[in-house]
């Protein structure tokens, strides 16, 4: 029995690690999409951020400078997306895909040119990485049954970016639902014309939204290359941006629900790793592909209207053009 609890705890522990980039990207997508800008480029921004973080951290030896670089690069990519689809009213999906392709090609090319390691960055060590933090009292409580195990093994022992990701959710909720900026953000995603006639600049509002998305994707990228791993590896985002987008939709564009969706999808991924090659009673081996596809399948089922109804922001994907 205690074996089972240990396995469960470690699976939940890896759920948290795996969910972290999903949560950050889902909140990023929430800002962007609530303002009416489809953000399929979460993946690319995260990948660009991951590369920037690892590259700069390996040069400067500081994970925090690496994180700043990741945010900078990701915001630049977000601005490019904004320039294409806010200023020039381009197709948001095409622009987002272009960002993804750009990131996947550029990171490898630059990586080879700068570090000569086949697209990887040098292994990071010391201050160039984000290491696990033991929360106060974790050791002391470790022996307390249940609560102690949960606190010391599950909650304690993650790196700073993990905690940052979880704090992001209430902050996002607060910004979106409790501030003037949030009210206008939600409004512009529903009816940009109403926002314009209320004397607010639609462009500036949407730019601010994509900048928020850029910042969060940058943090997600830095987590991948300097927190979860110790270097940049080509294509290391591995579709997490898309899963985050699926989680955002699954969470009906709401922060708390999106967080739960991220945790669910993260748990599925952690479970996939745990179950690989394990014979389950009755079921036999569960094919990994099926587990990996589950987030997408669940999202499609949701969109088809089987689990409640996901109502997207009304003006999503539509560039704002004044009449005529």
């Amino acid at each position, binding site marked *: 029995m205690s074996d089972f609890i240990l396995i469960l705890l470690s699976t939940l522990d890896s759920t948290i690690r795996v969910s972290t980039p999903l949560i950050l990207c889902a909140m990023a997508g929430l800002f962007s999409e609530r303002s009416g800008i489809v953000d399929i480029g979460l993946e690319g921004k995260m990948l660009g951020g991951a590369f920037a973080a690892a590259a700069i951290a390996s040069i400067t030896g500081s994970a925090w400078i690496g994180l700043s670089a990741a945010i900078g690069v990701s915001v630049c990519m977000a601005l490019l997306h904004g320039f294409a689809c806010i200023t020039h009213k381009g197709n948001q999906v095409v622009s987002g895909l272009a960002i993804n392709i750009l990131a996947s090609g550029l990171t490898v090319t630059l990586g080879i040119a700068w570090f000569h390691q086949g697209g990887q960055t040098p292994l990071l060590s010391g201050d160039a990485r984000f290491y696990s933090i033991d929360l106060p009292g974790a050791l002391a409580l470790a022996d307390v049954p249940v609560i102690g195990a949960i606190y010391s093994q599950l909650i304690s022992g993650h790196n700073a970016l993990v905690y940052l990701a979880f704090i992001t959710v209430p902050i996002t909720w607060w910004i979106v*639902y*409790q*501030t*003037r*900026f*949030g*009210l*206008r953000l*939600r*409004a512009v995603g*529903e*009816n940009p*014309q*109403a*926002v*314009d*006639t*209320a*004397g*607010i600049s639609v462009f500036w509002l949407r730019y601010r939204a994509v900048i928020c998305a850029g910042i969060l994707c940058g943090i997600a990228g830095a987590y991948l290359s300097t927190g979860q791993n110790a270097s940049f590896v080509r294509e290391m985002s591995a579709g997490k941006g898309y899963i985050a987008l699926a989680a955002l939709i699954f969470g009906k564009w709401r922060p708390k629900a999106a967080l739960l969706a991220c945790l669910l999808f993260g748990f599925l991924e952690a479970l996939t790793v745990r179950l690989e090659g394990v014979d389950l009673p009755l079921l036999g081996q569960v094919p990994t592909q099926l587990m990996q596809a589950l987030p997408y399948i669940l999202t499609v089922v949701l969109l088809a209207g089987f689990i409640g109804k996901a109502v997207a922001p*009304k003006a999503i994907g539509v560039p704002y053009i*004044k*009449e*005529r």
Partner: protein
Amino acid sequence: MSSSHNAEQQGDMPPAIDLRKINKSFGPVHANKDVDLVVARGSIHGIIGENGAGKSTLMSILYGFYEADSGEILINGKLAAITSSKDAIYAGIGMVHQHFMLIDTFTVLENVMLGAEQSSSLKESKISARAELARLSVEFGLAVDPDAITGDLAVGLQQRVEILKALYRGAEILILDEPTGVLTPQEVNQLFDILNALRERGVSVMLITHKLQEIMAITDEVTVMRGGTMVATRETAKTTKAELAELMVGRKVLLEVDKSVAQPKEVLLETSNLTIKDDAGVTRLDAVSLKVHAGEILGIAGVSGNGQTELLDVLSGILPVQEGFIVLNGTTIDKKNVLNAKDFRHLSLGHVAEDRHKQGMVTDFSARECAIMGFQDEPEFNGPILMDNKAVTEHCVKLMDEFDVRPANPHLKAANFSGGNQQKLCLAREIERQPKVLLVGQPTRGVDIGAIEFIHQQIVQLRDAGHAVLVVSVELEEVMSLCDRIIVMFEGRIVGEMAASDADAQKLGLLMGNAGSNDQTSTQGASS
């Protein structure tokens, strides 16, 4: 703002709005030519003109949506530079748009304060906005529940929210763009009461409309626009509908439809208990049973969105019959005998769609292509393999000639015709086949007065030739003057039927708003 003005005071005061030599072009189209306009403070000033006369452009310039190419705007005697809606709001101008600028998912309070929040914290903003909203509601008699979800409100109440939005921003000049299009006659009366109250408190109101009776009912002064220019300004008390109509069109027009008494014969179209539910399971059409006889025009009146669209769709084969049945020229169509739109046409049914841009034509196609839509498979337009382009063009030329479509160029893109000419082309395409039953949705929506007369004549002629016509229109005057018998729809049901000769706006209006149910959720004490 609260002090009322009288005529003597106005004499010394600069006008609320003084536009001088406003010009605006969109490419080759000169939408406003040297427009001068003076609106006295504390008055209701009507601006009337046909579609494309430049009314909306002028108001968009005043509200900062477009920038004028040249000209000056003086607000209360002071030169104002208005390049954005923000400038306009700052100058004390508020606008109630034809399509409401509201966020359906927001509460009334959130909509009112959007863009004019007092603090970066929403909580604090809401407290001050709530107090101000309550004050305005009392002062102007505009009661709305601040916590209601805007999208759930009746259209009349949503409009009230728009007015409150403008007042909340301290508007002393209120522009209303075609405000009555979506309202029942009773709601229109309420709106007029509100406008009168605003005028008494010194607010200057500009009413943009194409409806003559509204101008006569409420305005102090009226300006007529035609072809981008100001044609005339009249004191409302000293003008007549006929004079205004003539000024609008540039020639004498017949406001009443000229027709004889109908001679109804056999039933050509009949429905029994037709019921339609949409994808969300909402009943859109509720057990509708009606009969249309040869030689009569049956009119369907009602505020738009009360099932008229679904009725036209199911009667023309666009929507399948879900419950009940249709008998069209002796053929029964029900759940078992499903026919598509083409089959319906072969049963001698013509359909002039309500929304010609969505269903009536493809605006990117040329006129000659639009003129055969729905009949593109007919042998006369097809060779052994390819389409017979010559026949298609000739067909279009013939229609254009018979229905006076201008310009008579079959190769011109449909989008480049005016609304009236597009409608004439659609009507020509359907009438030319001499269908036994003709469905016409909104025969004159977005159509100028000159063309309205012509379209009505064509429909009456078809009736006199012994065909059955069903007209759906939200324009009460049109229904009353064009049709022989009127059915009123409300929430998908038929709530009344009468001969056109017995109908008046009051009777129809009560039915349209289903007088029993009251959408005035609260008229007093909105503050809670």
